[in-house]
């Protein structure tokens, strides 16, 4: 069975990667298994300066999901390059560096530093984080701003640029087409769905940030629908994500139109989920007599 998946900037040995923000910079998971098994690693978001993030509570559990409002806590791009990326180099896994910021200049500077480091394969523009006050989400909900940001980052980046799309929009297809036109090399979708939970005993929101991003199995049908819709309008590579917990989920994303997938929240409930799914995917293909993972495509779904 051929699992090899070649995406712009990311020559992956299989289509599985941990999703940004759910894997830190890999240090914790490296103690549990060999990271070189992974197809790629989507790194925790980098910003120009270090960020503490939001106050706690930062997570709240919901039916079949969780809300988070971490607030892009990270040590800043300089430290990330010097300490985290140089350490990750030993695993020889193509890295997808997630970039966030408050202004277009922030994004440009951070993306350029990461691209110039020579240590990452591609940039993932985080224009959809629902948990920071400025920037982020505004770029992710206005197609014109998203396009402008994409083309500006493309100009300064020597490596491919993926745009991570927000589901918190009326038409995700409009956003996808806008960034494609602006030169995006790929899409990753979906980021978390904005949500809120209120403690009925106190009448107060559970999260210190009041609202947060919903992830986990609860959002999977939203992700599948959105990828399916976008795939009908573009041939851009899509990294699909949203509640993946099993091999069957991965296959569903491939059918919807994803070329590769990212596993997020499931890393929290089972830190071994990524290698388990990679193994499971090989087993699944054997049973179904699938010779190449790329034979599992959307065509059957689309043409019905």
């Amino acid at each position: 069975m051929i699992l090899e998946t070649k995406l712009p900037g990311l020559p992956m040995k299989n289509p599985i990667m941990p999703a940004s923000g759910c894997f830190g910079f890999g240090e914790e998971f490296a103690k549990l298994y060999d990271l070189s098994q992974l197809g790629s690693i989507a790194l925790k978001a980098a910003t120009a300066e270090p960020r503490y993030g939001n106050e706690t509570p930062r997570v709240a559990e919901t039916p079949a999901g969780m809300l988070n409002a971490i607030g892009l806590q990270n040590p800043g791009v300089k430290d990330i390059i010097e300490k985290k990326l140089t350490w990750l180099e030993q695993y020889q896994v193509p890295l997808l560096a997630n970039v966030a910021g408050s202004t277009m200049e922030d994004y440009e500077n951070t993306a350029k530093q990461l691209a110039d480091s020579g240590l990452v394969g591609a940039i993932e523009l985080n224009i959809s984080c629902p948990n920071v006050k400025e920037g982020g989400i505004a770029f992710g909900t206005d197609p014109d701003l998203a396009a402008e940001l994409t083309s500006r980052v493309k100009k300064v980046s020597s490596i491919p640029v993926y745009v991570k799309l927000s589901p918190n929009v009326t038409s995700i297809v409009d956003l996808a087409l806008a960034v494609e036109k602006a030169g995006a090399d790929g899409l990753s979708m979906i980021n978390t769905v904005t949500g809120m939970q209120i403690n009925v005993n106190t009448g107060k929101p559970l999260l210190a940030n009041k609202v947060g991003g919903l992830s986990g199995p609860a959002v999977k049908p939203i992700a599948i629908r959105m990828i399916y819709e976008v795939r009908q309008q573009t041939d851009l590579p899509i990294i699909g994500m949203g509640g993946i917990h099993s091999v069957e989920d991965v296959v569903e994303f491939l059918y919807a139109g994803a070329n590769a997938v990212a596993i997020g929240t499931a890393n929290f409930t089972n830190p071994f989920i990524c290698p388990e799914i990679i193994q499971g995917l090989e087993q699944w293909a054997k049973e179904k007599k699938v010779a190449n993972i790329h034979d599992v495509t959307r065509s059957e779904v689309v043409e019905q």
Partner: protein
Amino acid sequence: MIKEEMRIRSNLPIAQHIFEMKLEGNIPEEVNQPGQFLHMKTTNQVTPLLRRPISICSNDKDKGQLTVIYRSGGQGTKCISEKKIGDTIDVLGPLGNGFNIENVNRTDTVVLAGGGIGVPPLYGLGLELKKKGIHVVSVLGFSTASATFYHDKFAELGEVFYCTMDGTEGHKGTVTDVMRRENISFDQLFACGPVPMLKSLEDTFPDAKGALSLEERMGCGIGACFACVCHVQDDPTGKDYRKVCSNGPVFPWREVALR
């Protein structure tokens, strides 16, 4: 740290909403300090989704068994409380850094100050201290008499002061109240309980040696998700932090900001 299906040897209520569970598996062999914790999957279904961090009360490497004490409050811990002898439970552990007692001298007096469901890890700590021949005094606070537990066990460690907020058992008031009122002195103070209790102890005994253990909502439990971070003291930038799950849950006094 390993992930395994541990077998449940007993799971019984020992006080109001409080359960004691004995588990068997390979994790006990890995435990190296009292105060470490387990991250438990409460069900094989997707709800409740997240694991529950539960501190290890006591550990027996030889038997491959450990004991946890938890409060059945929310949906997750209710699932755990419904598990039967012989069932298995998906456990990640041992996690975190526990109480380091290498710097406790044989001649020291140690006070274990516990509040509510913060009491259990102090029992395992007390056992280790007693093994070293150290004089242990326990000051245990609860909301009310029906919430108290482990009377006999703590009595075996040394002198015990009970206190309840409503005065239904032992002294009326908080752990700090009783320590002040009874002039309980110590060389080292180890505490686990709600943040207001820890804060009040730290304010009352600003030079205390020893450590405190924090409880916090957690995501992954291994340091990757940044759900359980806390600020540190003496940090004008406000950007420094500790992760409760992987840097803690046990910290020296005055290291982390209690709020």
